[in-house]
Each structure stands twice: as structure tokens, then as C-alpha cells.
């Protein structure tokens, strides 16, 4: 429970000469759900791109005890750091089933992949009902389920969920959050990146608040939820 899974230390990253992230420190422990919240332009996406190694950056980055600094995005993915990307990025013309298989693209062994499929269909019965349907023709919530299922097919150690709630009805968001809790109980660590601070803190153990490229506050979800500054700035209470 207390092993550090992902750690960023003295992390700087940006585009061209401009650093968006300045001296960032960030930790995710095994088995946690961590929420990373911040408004538009806070640097959440830059941080995620640093983690997936599609953006170079400077500093220390370790995942599961290994430095990721010189790894390619494919190797990062293979080592178990898997994204559920913002906007879902499904293969619209492919069926739900094919989308899920794409998640297992870098895995070998049919038996293990079939077992994962069964697990994902167990978590999302709706996906099983629609497994032959073109993924692009489904509703937003179902598409988000498909994106989550696809990521799970990669056998992740850490699931990076980017802006999951975007454009979805609150009821659906609650369902998805519940599923994330279930996933965590099965031993997968979750990093939830959200603008919707309220939704994120509902299930998270800990949270980080990001403002203009720096982490301004961190603590347990309860602490953050009750913090007067956050209540004022983000929740409008």
C-alpha cells in the first residue's frame, strides 16, 4: 500500500523555451486513487505528456522503481503506465470488441488476453451487449467505458484517466467513478486528472491542486474538500 509507484522530482517541462511545469514534485503510491485537479491551462496535459514520455522535460521520473527518462512512449506503455486519453480517442470505425483488442496490442498469449477480455466485459456488461457495434456510434458514456476497457486490456499498473467526466451527465460520471473504485480494489492504481474537482475528490484518496504549472496544494481528499480556499475557488461554495 505504501510503495511508491510513480514519482516526479524537480520536474520541468514545456514547449520551446517556455517551461510550463516548474520544479514539480509529484508522487503516486501503489493502490491509491490520486486526483490531479486544476483549471484550464494549469499544466495538467503537459504533466500527462511528460508521464507518457511524448514530451521530453527535465528532472527525475521513476515508475515502478525504474527511471522512465530515456524510455520511448511504447516502452512506457508496455511497463504498465496506460492512458485513458482525453476525448476518448476510440477507433470509431472499429467495433467495441476490436477496440478492446487494440488495447492488448503489445501483449502476447491468447489465453491471457481472453481472460482480460472476460474481466473487462464483467466490469462493463454494457460493452458486452454492444461488442459488435461500431464504437463511434455509441453514446458518450459508453464510449468512455470502451476507452477505459481498452486501457484495462493493456494490463496496466497505473491507469491515467484524463478528463473522464468531460461532456458526460453527472449520473454517468458517478457510474464511471464507481467502476474506477472497483478497478482500484482489483489492485490497479488510478491517477485521475480532472477539471471537475468535485467528482474527482469524491473517490480519490489524495489530491493535488495545480495552478499555472505548479502544485499549490496537496493532501487527503477530505482535507482538500474542506479547504476554504478550494471551496471558494473551485467549488463556488
Amino acid at each position, binding site marked *: 500500500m505504501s510503495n511508491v509507484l510513480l514519482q516526479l522530482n524537480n520536474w520541468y517541462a514545456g514547449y520551446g523555451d517556455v517551461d510550463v511545469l516548474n520544479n514539480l514534485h509529484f508522487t503516486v503510491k501503489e493502490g491509491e486513487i490520486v486526483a490531479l485537479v486544476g483549471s484550464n491551462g494549469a499544466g495538467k496535459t503537459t504533466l500527462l505528456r511528460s508521464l507518457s514520455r*511524448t514530451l521530453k522535460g527535465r528532472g527525475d521520473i521513476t515508475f515502478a522503481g525504474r527511471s522512465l527518462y530515456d524510455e520511448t512512449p511504447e516502452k512506457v506503455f508496455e511497463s504498465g503506465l496506460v*492512458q485513458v*486519453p482525453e476525448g476518448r480517442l*476510440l477507433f470509431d470505425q472499429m467495433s467495441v470488441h476490436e477496440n478492446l483488442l487494440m488495447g492488448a496490442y503489445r501483449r502476447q498469449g491468447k489465453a491471457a488476453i481472453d481472460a482480460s477480455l472476460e474481466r473487462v466485459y464483467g466490469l462493463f456488461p454494457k460493452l458486452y451487449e454492444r461488442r459488435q457495434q461500431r464504437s463511434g456510434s455509441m453514446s458518450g458514456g459508453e464510449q468512455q467505458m470502451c476507452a477505459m476497457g481498452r486501457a484495462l486490456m493493456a494490463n496496466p499498473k497505473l491507469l491515467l484517466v484524463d478528463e473522464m467526466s468531460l461532456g458526460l451527465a453527472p449520473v454517468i460520471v458517478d457510474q464511471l467513478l464507481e467502476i474506477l473504485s472497483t478497478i482500484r480494489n482489483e489492485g490497479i492504481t488510478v491517477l485521475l486528472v480532472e477539471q471537475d474537482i468535485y467528482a474527482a475528490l469524491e473517490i480519490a484518496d489524495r489530491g493535488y491542486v495545480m495552478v499555472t504549472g505548479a502544485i499549490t496544494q496537496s493532501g487527503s481528499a477530505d482535507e482538500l474538500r474542506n479547504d476554504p480556499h478550494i471551496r471558494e475557488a473551485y467549488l463556488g461554495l
Partner: protein
Amino acid sequence: MKRLLPLLLIIILGVLTALPWIAGPTLVQFAINALMLATLAQGWNIIGGFAGYASFGNSIFFGLGSYGVAIAMVQWNLPFGVGLVIGVVFSVLFALAMGVPVLRLRGHYFAIATLALSQVMSAIFSNLDIAGRNIGLVLPLLRSDTLFYELSLGLLVIATLTVFWLSRSRFGFGLIAIRENEDAAQSMGVNTTRYKVLAFTLAGIFSSLAGGIHAYWITFIDPNSAFDLSLNVKMIIMAVFGGPGSVLGPVIGAALLSAISELLSSTLSSVASLFFGVVIVIAVILMPKGLTDCWLRFPVTGWRYFIHNIRQHRL
């Protein structure tokens, strides 16, 4: 039907192999051309149909293959086979060197960049002494249509088997993922750059071999005919007409369109290209996913197939 298809293909292949001994010289010459176009369409299918990158640079590989054979045979007195290898080496080097920067571009930008590259190559070869500058090169004459026919047929079979393998391989699945959503493919651990460059290279190898065989058959090449853009347009039309991303679509498309084009130009020569254009416009409107898709879906949906497609175009 599924079980009959391999048998049917073997019979067709047998008849095609025997064609030079049963058909007249005009038909064999037409067939050599059609086989070459089918190979080019199949090559384009790999990068355009599977990976979804509409390349206008495939005629460059055709030209490099042609010049590989011509330079080897005329300037260096090397045998034809060595010339083919030289052409392929040129093409692979070109695909690797140009593929990395050009394949970073997407959609129209990729198409325009490859379009420009083929003009650049034509200009470069017009100024090379070894390639005979503007005048081109005349190759030694070999009067054996049968040999060129069988070579072309063999190449098409290899290209089609490669695409068949591709359609069932992890590599091919990765290319389809790139076509469907490149960002998603990358986030699922597909090494998109490597895959695209490999697909471009593979397409280049087949186009180059087709160019090499064609050059020796025609016995004369110059920069304009070697790097002919209209050839690239033809391979795209044939692949798209037949069914991009399918195994047999480009071959069927090339065979049908070659035949239609040949019949039209022999019966009503002056308006032939107009008719050819009309055939293509109608085909694109009625069956945008190509003949193969139409063949599979028409029995299920009937005439609604065409109505649905017309509606999709919002005509």
C-alpha cells in the same frame, strides 16, 4: 463461398499463367500493362489503404526502379536482375530518408509533400549525366512478351500475398489503427513512426520492382515517363475503386478499370478519357468503400446500399 474462393483463385491464376500460350500478342501486351498497374495499386494499398496515408509519391519508387534497371544495364553493363536490386535499394533508401520527415505530415499536407517530391525527383534525374539527362536512356531490346508477362504476374502474386499476410498480421492491424485514429494508436503503444515508414518502404519495394520490369519491357525511359504523376493518380483510382484496405480489391479494380479504359479508347478514342472519368465519379458516389465492400454488402442490403451511400454524400 468462403471455401470456394481459394479454389477459384487458383483456377484463375492457372489460366493467367497459361495466357501467353492461349492468347494473341495484343491481349498479352494489354495484360502486362494491367498487371503492372495492379501491382502499383497493391503497393499503394499498403500505405494508402491500410495506413490511410494518401501517397502521391509512389510513382517516385516506380521511377527509381526504372532508372535502377536502366542505369545498371546501359551504363554499367550489369544484368537485369542486378538492376532490379539496385532500383529496390534506391527506393528503400529513399523511403527511409524521406519517409521519416514526410510521414510526420497528415492528410492533405502529406499528399502535397509527396506530390512535390515526385516533381523534385523528375528535375534531379533530368540533370544527371548517368541517367541520360532530359533525353533518357535506351535499354537493350528483349523481344519476349511471355517473359515480361510471367515476371509481372509473379510480382503481382507476391505483392498480393504480402498484403494478405499484412491483413492478418499484428503489423497490419497496427497500420489500420493508425488509419482509424493515429493518436489513439500511439496511446495504445503502436510505434506509429516506425510502422508508417515500414509501410511506405514496403509499398516502395513493389512499385520499384514494377518500374524496373516496365523499363526493360518498354526499352526506353526519360524523366517524364519515369516519374509520371498520372501513373500515381491511376494507382490511387484503381485501389480506391476496388476497395482500399482489402486484399483483392486493388487487383480487381486495376483489372476492371484497365479493361474499361482499353475498350473505351479502342471504340471511341476521342471521348474515352471523359467516359473513364465519369465511370470513376459514379463509382466513388455509389460505392465509396470500393467494389469489395459493395460485393460483400449488396447481397445483404440490396439497392439500399447505393441509396445509403448517395445520402452519405448529401447530394
